[in-house]
């Protein structure tokens, strides 16, 4: 721009008159104000501030003026050009903002369109239910123990005070593996895990046993709405100095409250299990009617508990010293409690399931309802 100018004859040159300059400036400002979009503004810039614009020409001529005229002309042209370029910038900012806003409006979509290209996955409530239970106990400082589902007969029965001629063995309809003389069964409860824990870990004053054993178990039950040859249990075992039924009750009350909500507790009834002595059946406050036995506020009886206010939940008791003995634990010094309940059954109460079979059918409509955590 400021290079030597050879396009004109310096002798003939005269400064642009102030009036002309003013006119050129006003024309430029008017055009700028009239521009309605960035495209028009670009043309305006070229016409009024471009190389061939009157103001640019005027600017170029300044160099050719006699030195004494340059200063004044320079000032005037500079002011005019400054005003135009400021106006251009301001207008551009306005138009650019307008443009952006318009684009955002134009790009609007219907956000209610579906977005289900990849269907949802889910974990099974039996898995997440067992995890929920485990977490309740882990929070109390318990550990989660596991063992094989195909188990030695001795661990599934004998070690648990269920000798070969124990009538209770007929209560547990056992799947035997072939050949039956090899004494291997599909475990009928998760109690062998408790036996394994005692056998492998032992107990000391500093390392008591507090374990919970969730897992899959088998009985030769025909498959129907409330029975299944395969189901899930959670059993717990605590062995420590001075353990009593009060600790068992405290633990189960806490478990019930965490699992089903505050105000839900347990009740014990005398019962019989070879593994425990004394033994008890555990009932749970019916969490549908919350123990009233009534349906809603009306006079009808609660369907879940049949008006009892309690539902059968599982079995428990003080670990039979014979079991401690078989598992190498000093029964004079330590005592323990154990409990067990069905996870399937617990979930059926908690989630209002009518038919046990829905848990094993694998219908994705059932499972996805539960998401990835219970």
């Amino acid at each position: 721009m400021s290079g030597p100018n050879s396009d004109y004859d310096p002798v003939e040159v005269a400064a642009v008159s102030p009036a002309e300059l003013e006119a050129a400036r006003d024309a430029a400002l008017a055009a700028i104000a009239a521009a309605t979009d960035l495209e028009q503004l670009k043309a305006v810039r070229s016409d009024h501030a471009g190389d061939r614009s009157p103001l640019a020409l005027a600017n170029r001529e300044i160099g050719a003026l006699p030195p004494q005229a340059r200063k004044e002309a320079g000032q005037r042209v500079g002011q005019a050009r400054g005003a135009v370029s400021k106006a251009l910038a301001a207008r551009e900012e306005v138009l650019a903002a307008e443009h952006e806003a318009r684009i955002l409006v134009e790009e609007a979509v219907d956000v209610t369109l579906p977005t289900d290209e990849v269907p949802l996955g889910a974990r099974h409530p039996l898995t997440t239910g067992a995890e929920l239970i485990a977490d309740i106990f882990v929070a109390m400082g318990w550990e989660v123990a596991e063992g094989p589902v195909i188990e030695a007969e001795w661990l599934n029965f004998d070690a648990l005070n269920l000798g070969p001629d124990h009538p209770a063995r007929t209560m547990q309809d056992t799947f035997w593996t072939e050949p039956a003389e090899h004494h291997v069964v599909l475990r009928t409860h998760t109690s062998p895990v408790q036996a394994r824990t005692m056998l492998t870990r032992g107990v000391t004053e500093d390392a008591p046993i507090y374990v919970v054993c969730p897992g899959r178990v088998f009985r030769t039950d025909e498959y129907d709405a409330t029975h299944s040859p395969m189901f899930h249990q959670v059993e717990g075992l605590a062995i420590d100095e001075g353990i009593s039924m009060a600790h068992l009750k405290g633990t189960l009350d806490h478990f019930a409250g965490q699992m089903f909500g505050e105000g839900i507790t347990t009740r014990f009834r005398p019962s019989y299990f070879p593994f425990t002595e004394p033994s008890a059946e555990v009932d749970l406050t019916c969490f549908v009617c919350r123990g009233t036995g009534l349906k809603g506020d009306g006079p009808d009886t609660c369907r879940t508990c049949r008006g009892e206010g309690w539902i059968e939940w599982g079995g428990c008791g003080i670990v039979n010293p014979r079991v401690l003995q078989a598992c190498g634990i000093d029964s004079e010094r330590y005592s323990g409690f154990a409990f067990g309940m069905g996870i399937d059954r617990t979930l059926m109460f908690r989630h209002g399931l009518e038919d046990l079979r829905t848990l094993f059918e694998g219908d994705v409509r059932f499972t996805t309802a539960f998401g990835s955590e219970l």
Partner: protein
Amino acid sequence: MKAPVSWIRELVDLPAEVTTEVLTDRLTALGLKLEGIHAAGAEIRGPLVIGEVLTMEPEPQKNGKTINWCTVDVGDANGTGEPQGIVCGAHNFAPGDLVVVILPGGVLPGDQGSGAVEISARKTYGHVSAGMICSVRELGIGDDHDGILVLPPDAGAPGDDAFGLLGLDDEVIEFEINPDRAYALSLRGVAREAALGFGVPFADPAERELPESDGKAWEVVVDDAIGCPVFAARLVSGFDPAAPTPEFVKRRVEQAGMRSISLAVDVTNYVMLELGQPIHGYDADKVAGALGVRRAREGERLTTLDDTVRELSIEDLVITDDSGPIGLAGVMGGATTEMSETTTRILIEAAHWDAVSMFRTGKRHKLTSEAGKRNERGVDPLLPGAAADRVVELLVEYGGATAEPGFTLVGVAPRRPVVTIATDLPARLSGIDITAMTTVESLRAIGATVVEQDADTIEVTPPTWRPDINDPYDLVEEVVRIVGYDQVPSVLPRRATGRGLTRTQRLRRRIGRTLAGAGLVEVVSFPFVGEATFDKLGLPADDPLRVTVGLANPLSSEEPAYTTTLLPGLLEAASRNVGRGAPGVALFETGTVAFPADNGPAPIYGVHTRPSAAELDKLVEALPVQPQHVAVVLAGERRRAGWWGPGTDAGWSDALAVVRRLAADLGVRVDVASSSRMPWHPGRCALISVDGVQLGHAGELHPSVCTAYGLPARSAAVELDLDALMAAAADVTLGPDFSTMPVAKEDVALVVDAGVTVAAVEAALREGAGDLLESIRLFDVYTGAQIEEGQKSLAFALRFRAPDRTLTEAETGAARAAAVARAAELTGAVQR
């Protein structure tokens, strides 16, 4: 065990305010679990009265039936004292008979669920019939008679209430009796508990004056005193086999759920219900010589009362006479000496049997009987003499029999052990504040003999009817149940210091979440399989997966084994979903599979001491190998069609994508190699491994498998060894080093033979590119006109980056060239 309330009340003097509900609540709290309360007449509403038939006019009808127009004296029950006119269709009665009449306003239960019938005076067959003469069926107390219930002449007077007479108001409590409370399989036991529960006296029905045994009732030789510690025999003669069973015996036997058969049989059952002692009656004229008790001999047979010929085992206890075995002791009598409608001399046997032997015999012969049920749980050994005597008494009273002199009682009752117990043990174990005095009183209340040894210890002899009590803890349960389980306080134990979830437990949760996050739905299926399952998977005959852990007693003969693969369960579930209309389904399961170990039998150890470590190892070794697997099935629509474009169905690559996603989440680098294995498509199956350890397979299912399960074509599956995968998972992941210097990107397109795998080319490029290579990714595969047939072009995006500087073009170019050169060298790749 079903116990009529009236019978309980006969044996124990319960306060009148104790309702059946209060009674059952108390008994439940003591350990007799309530199964239900039944009352025959629960649905009948009065007035139900005795009527005497005065007149009876048969009136033939046009429809061929003949009805009887009767007048019946119902005393004052109808308010007028006038005879009641009733139309009756039955003919098995006559004027003068006493019958049961329900008067207008009454309600009958109605036939099998047809709803209650309200009785009103109504016009029928030209008469106004004001009520109904009832049959047992209409009363809901039986269905074995078609006609009208005709009462014995001494049943009562016209107008008397019939509820009590028929036992319609008698509630029957059904208990579920636990194995340790076998004594409660009798009214004697239930009543004893009721007396205990309400603190009222109990008159033991087994307490009878018995004569000294003279051995003269019948000769009895017991060869096996362990199997049969006590054997009592009595004899009656002159019994009238036609004598009817008295109403109360019949009703009670039926209330208990047994059938009334004949007076002689009913009486033995009645006494068993009353006392808990099983009793057997022989037709004495059919018994030849002395009764013997011994174990059966090899090859001996016996036809039991149920007309079944039984091969006896040398462990079975039998009763014999001169002809050989005549009864399966304690379980079921034999056919040859069975009482019949001509029996007049009855030999009564009441014996105490070894419970274990009874249990084994019952199991061996698959025989469950009321007698066996009691004998195998343990009966009071002091009962045989009293029970036999009670039977004699009833046969004399109701059967016109004469009690023959002589009483044979062989053997003595086994002694009960003396259990020493600290008096504070019940308090310590229950957490209830139980005093020494309460302990002693409670134990005496259950019938134990308690001797106070010193201030803190007592010696307890349990009662003879409690064979289950042998240990101090058994006594604790007795004390606590009497004090009340509801008294146990709720106290949390000391806070344990747990170590949280194990690594494996955390990994399993993580794997589940990752798979669910990939859009897969978890399934839990049964692990039972059979040959047909493997056929459906197309496994060859010698496939190792066909070698299963068999089940000796499967539920279904079609599925007699524990599975070796999770795929069958998943494929069935996928098929079920598709069958129910799902356009696509993506499932996963984690679970145990099993392979035989063939290490011989698992030992059975004693239980008095802990097995040694070596012995425990033997147990574990005998078990099948039980790895955890994870499996996936993807069938049909995987990505749905929508406004965004068309959908895609699941295929082999989706299976691989799941594997890689899972591996990436666990920080495991898996190797993928082409493989061939059923049930996968032979050209679309990948072997997955980690550091040379095979994890399993992934890919598209064989078309025949898709067809067999009714799944869409190209359905895909994965099955991996979860244990091996978890073992390979990063334990503690170290934070990765990465450079923040600028990246240099280079694309290369290489032409290789179609058979060369991408993995091979990629590995060569990676090797050649050296340390500056940050990542490499295949972004296009091309086959077609632009290149020769039998070849393919692979386009890779390479990213280079140095840890400490901006790479120059020369450096990047050199690395790229080295990569291409190595690929050319190893795979014959030519740059395009």
